[in-house]
């Protein structure tokens, strides 16, 4: 009798291994959609969960790593300081695949210092901001990404300038900067797959409405508002290195970006010509869309070839954490030489 073959991915693993615990976030929370896309992307790309480390800070967003990739190691760090923990883990073992999940408060307020320096280093990590413009876990206070004029449920108006994490990341040297919307399944999935093919820092700001504290009229991070003001820069398609697919397109209509692992990112141009390898155009576009009250989404800036942090540090190829003693303790002759120099 024939048994129904189990569904597995390219490395022979079942979807179950990519799932996590049951979410404790509010029903309809944008963060849950992001967790689902992460599960799909890691499964479809055939990433070994044993090699993945999930990192987060504190907040609703930072709880979410418990809800995906349950067979991977996770570290819920302290508020705003996940970048340093992720940096340490990657220095210890550069074979790991790091995914960090943060929020707009965890990144833009308490964690802005570590965020800034993470972007400068080009550490191999996928850094996701689940961005809802408010503090959910402490019941709805404004966060630093709340837009000018956006209101709280109780009518309080934000009159402070928002931090545009994408513009900041580009200015600081991040090599893969994208923005998406938790409701745009296709775009987000392709961006996550592309992120897995990038060697360096991926900064992915995902607008992810808070259904409990920031989904009302007057909020610029509500589902309705974001849906109406989402301005995709391009149509994002992704061809992984392990799929031999030829895509037909009109010359000049698609920009192809070759990723670090051989995958291809295909960016179909929409209304106007947008080149995400042009830093200046990227910055201008972010400012222009923001002035119009819109969100530019898609790949905003990409630089696939820059050396990552470990390469800059010229670290050996093997994980530092498991180097044997004979490679980490210099011989007696070295100590003798040092002692002699001090006599």
């Amino acid at each position, binding site marked *: 009798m024939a048994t129904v073959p189990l569904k597995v991915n390219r490395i022979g693993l079942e979807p179950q291994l990519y799932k996590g615990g049951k979410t404790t976030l509010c029903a309809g929370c944008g963060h849950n959609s992001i967790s689902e896309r992460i599960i799909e992307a890691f499964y479809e790309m055939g990433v070994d969960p044993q090699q993945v480390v999930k990192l987060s800070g504190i907040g609703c967003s930072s709880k979410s790593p418990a809800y995906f990739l349950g067979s991977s190691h996770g570290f819920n760090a302290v508020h705003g300081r996940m970048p*340093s923990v992720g940096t*340490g883990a990657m220095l210890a073992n550069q074979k790991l695949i790091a995914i960090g999940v943060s929020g707009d408060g965890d990144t833009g307020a308490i964690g802005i210092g570590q965020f800034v320096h993470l972007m400068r280093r080009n550490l191999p990590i996928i850094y996701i901001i689940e961005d809802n413009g408010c503090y959910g876990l402490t019941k709805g206070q404004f966060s630093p990404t709340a837009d000018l004029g956006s209101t709280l449920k109780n009518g309080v108006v934000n009159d402070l300038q928002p931090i545009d994490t994408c513009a900041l990341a580009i200015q600081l040297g991040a090599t893969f900067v994208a923005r998406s919307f938790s409701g745009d399944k296709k775009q987000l999935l392709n961006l996550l797959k592309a992120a897995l093919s990038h060697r360096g820092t991926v900064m992915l700001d995902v607008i992810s409405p808070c259904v409990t504290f920031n989904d009302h009229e007057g909020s610029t991070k509500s589902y309705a508002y974001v849906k109406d003001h989402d301005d995709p820069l391009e149509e994002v398609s992704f061809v992984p290195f392990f799929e031999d697919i030829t895509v037909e397109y009109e010359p000049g209509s698609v920009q192809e970006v070759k990723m670090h692992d051989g995958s291809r990112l295909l960016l179909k141009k929409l209304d106007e010509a947008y080149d995400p390898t042009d830093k200046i155009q990227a910055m201008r576009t972010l400012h222009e869309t923001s002035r119009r009250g819109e969100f530019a989404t898609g790949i905003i800036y990409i630089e696939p070839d820059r050396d990552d942090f470990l390469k800059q*540090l010229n670290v050996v190829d093997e994980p530092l954490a498991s180097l044997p003693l004979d*490679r980490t*303790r210099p011989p*007696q002759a070295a100590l003798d030489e040092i002692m002699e120099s001090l006599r």
Partner: protein
Amino acid sequence: MSPIDVAPQEKTTPLSATRVVNDFSIQVATVNGSGSQTANLVLLRSILLMGVPVSGKNMFPSNIAGLPTWYTIRASKRGYVGRKKEVDFLVAMNPETAKEDVMTLEPGAAVVYDEPLKLNELRSDLTFYPAPFDKLVAAVCPDAKLRRLVRNMIYDGILAKLLDIDLAYMEQALSRQLGKKAKAITLNAAALKAGFDYAETTFTKQDPFHVEKMNATAGKILIEGNAAAAIGCMMAGVTVVAWYPITPSSSLCESLIGYMRKYRIDKETGKATFAIVQAEDEIASLGMVIGAGWAGARAMTATAGPGISLMSEFAGLGYYAETPAVIFDVQRVGPSTGLPTRTAQGDLLSTAFLSHGDTKHILLIPHSVEESYELAMVAFDLAERFQTPIFVMMDLDLGMNNWMSDGFKYPTKPLDRGKRLTPEILAKLGEWGRYKDVDGDGIPYRTVPGDGMPAFFTRGSGHNPKAQYSERPDDYVNNVDRLSRKFETARTHVPRPIVDTDKDARIGIIGYGTSHWAITESRDQLREETNVKTSYLRVRAYPFTEDLVKFIDAHDRIYVVEQNRDAQLAMLMKLELSPERCAKLRNVLHYSGLPIDARSVSDDILAQEGFEVTKRFTPASASSMTGGE
């Protein structure tokens, strides 16, 4: 006025009748940034080369150039290397402090000074040796721009003559100091000679101080505690280092960078077997160390008190998430613009309980450069054995000053990488829980990312033995009680105190860290000068071992010697001692920012023992140092 006219004064006490050999201190007062370090180190090393035990202490301002700085060199035939309270020989090169420096000397001291300062007019009970430094340096250094750099070498030459230090040793020390810089060696050697010749033709020796050849320094090295700790870290196989510059700890990581670049580059690939990152602050430094320790690396950081304060939250996370980390705290005085370049033992209490909630940490406390090297290795073993942050409590005096030591021994013990889950252990256990105490010692088995063993989700305190999220009261209580059990296990694993018992002693002294050097000298003073016998216990770690109680029980009165205001070690001890034992404790506290000295310890103990103690001179001008903002 020619130099001969002013030196020496007739009224000078004729002390030269009694020769004081190999037992005095020299203080060199200069301006920060004037290049005196080379001259001071050459002087220090030349005495060492004469076979005489010697130590050097730098008392410097928080400043790059312009403020006063003092360097003290102590020669001691009995091997005392703590700070000597009295200055016997002053080299006054700083116009700003010269008068005060001279006024605070004890009668009978000698002064070499820059002639225009006219210090001889100030007192008649000292020996003065004026020298025209500008004139002397101009003669040997035609390039005016370089004169500032070699000017200080003149006083080395003068001292060589006055103290009978063989010029050949000075030249040897100079080559050692300047390495392959041939031109610099020639210039400095000329200045040295000029000073020597000037002293030879001009001065009549009036003071009693002499250096005589001994044979007490064969094979000895001279090293700063920070460099010693760095060597220990390298030998411990450290692979990840994250740090943020802060006095007085920066030179620990900087030395480490130097050593690692030399000895830890893979020969075949030319790549580094380490990663060292200068982080954005101390919070990130410890975050990186905890991330690296969590992922299985031997990781460390070094900082000072302000950095320790910033690390507080992460230290607690490390304790609860049970992540190995090694943190060096090179202690100094107080926050912000205070006395960042002065020594203290002021972080003991706050570090022992660093963070919020119920948290207590293992502390290691080295007293010497050799122990800094050895305890660095112990720290990494304990961090992995106990899966927790380990703090190595050094201080500025140890970390940044030059100490004489025997050469360090190559480690022979294998590394202790702690309890890591392997397929074999998993098979034996049957079921694994990250925070499950299977051996009864409070220490669970851990896995690290990428090791092929079961994964877990790391959080703070809210978890059950299987590392699952839990806010259940029993899970919380069980977990913190297990952590206490782990801390109790540590009591039997940390380095035990070093005890020296005098069977006739009713008095016990307890001390730690660099206070050791003042304490051992003070014990000799107490015994020889007043026939007061003492026993001594030097604490090397927290939690305390059972030796502490035994020692207290064996004595009537216990003097706890510390370099802080609040008697922090005594407080820590009182938390676990019975009221009867607590009642035996008395405090000897020293917290001026200067390293503790034996005389102060002796005087304090004698006063508390009911002896009449003569009021002495206040410490040399260093005690009242002021500087511009």
